[in-house]
């Protein structure tokens, strides 16, 4: 083990320890802690197996794509989960996002899947990822237009009810003020 490797492993272990600690102590936001934990794991791993650095080298395109996709799925999953947790997003909308993230993750964790897909459809792994993302974005958009139409219908209904209630209130108020005037006149 060379010195840089030892340094990397040591710093990685430190980062990992602190991020895990803060994850369980709720000191920071969870996905921030997860992010740092991932960096820590990578650094420790790089300390023992420097070959992972080669991933960033120009000679293994496949691996680089996998790494990028792993990062992408990681971001998608954590952000979605976080959005559900602080209830900014309803589960029904988050569902498609979760599926997208899981599919991407599965693709980069099991390269055999990717090869099977390649032999089945003839498109390479990188292209397949793009297609998956594209299809899911289309699905999301479709989902949004449906949700939007429903919401618009409901909004119109609420607006009508409000106008009717307002009219009723106006009538009641008029009647009341008329009654009052009548009472004073007598």
């Amino acid at each position, binding site marked *: 083990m060379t010195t840089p490797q030892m340094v990397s492993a040591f710093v990685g272990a430190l980062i990992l320890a602190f991020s895990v600690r803060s994850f369980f102590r709720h000191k920071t936001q969870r996905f921030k802690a997860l992010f740092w934990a991932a960096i820590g794991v990578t650094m420790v791993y790089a300390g023992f197996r420097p070959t992972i650095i080669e991933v960033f080298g120009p000679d293994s395109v496949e691996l680089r794509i996998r790494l990028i996709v792993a990062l992408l799925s990681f971001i998608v999953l954590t952000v979605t989960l976080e959005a559900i947790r602080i209830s900014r997003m309803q589960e029904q909308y988050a569902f498609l996002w979760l599926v997208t993230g899981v599919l991407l993750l599965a693709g980069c964790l099991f390269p055999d899947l990717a090869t099977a897909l390649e032999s089945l459809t003839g498109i390479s792994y990188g292209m397949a990822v793009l297609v998956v993302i594209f299809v899911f974005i289309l699905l999301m958009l479709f989902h949004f237009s449906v949700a939007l139409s429903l919401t618009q219908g409901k*909004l*119109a209904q609420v*607006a*009508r009810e*409000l*106008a*009717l209630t*307002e*009219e009723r209130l106006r*009538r009641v108020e008029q009647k009341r003020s008329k009654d009052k005037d009548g009472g004073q006149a007598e």
Partner: protein
Amino acid sequence: MAAMLPNTIVLIPAYNEEASIGPLLKEVAEHLPGVPVCVINDCSGDGTAQVLEGAGCAYLNLPCRLGVGGAMQAGFRYALEQGYDYAIRLDGDGQHPPSEGYALVERMAQGDADLVVGSRFLGKGGYTSSAARQVGIAGLATFLSYACRQQITDPTSGFQMVNRPTMTYFAHRYPAEYPEPETLALLSRQGYRFVEVPAVFRERQAGKSSIRRWGTLYYMLRVCVALFVDRCRAVDRRFERRRVETGT
């Protein structure tokens, strides 16, 4: 004459009609005496709301713009809640002269129609529309006549009178934008009967039309899509004509 059909209300959808709504209300009071009016103010940006405040008739202020269809639906809901048996629609721009309302009332009094439409193209003359629009209307009329198996000459006319069953259905379902042709198709599918009577329209008294120049083409497209979509949907069994109570 108005006594012939008691329990009738005049519904006026209005969007930015501050100039024409006042004279129109006066005309209604003159030609259809004793008939209550409800103006539906579709979130106008001008002084329509202020005019209505001093007008002394019932009015609904919609909190956001719903289009003429959404506004009319609010009006139908109001008429239903208040227990009216018939409703006449007059457009807020003064296109439909209240004096012509009698033609609709007379036809409705015969009792065999759920919806009476005042048609510009059944004889009497008067203001019709620009040439381009007339071509569009004619095309639409041909298509709708075929779809409804009944002759329709003026599918875009908003000069209408409905009875309580139709009101009940409209309060449940009414297209939001450019509703007139679509409602005819919907009614015919649900088993309601409608007839046309000749009516004389006027040019709009003030303000601007909501359909712009290229809007005519867009209107046609939208209506065709809507008709197609409606055709694909199932008939709403709950609101079939024979199931909706005759009211009162």
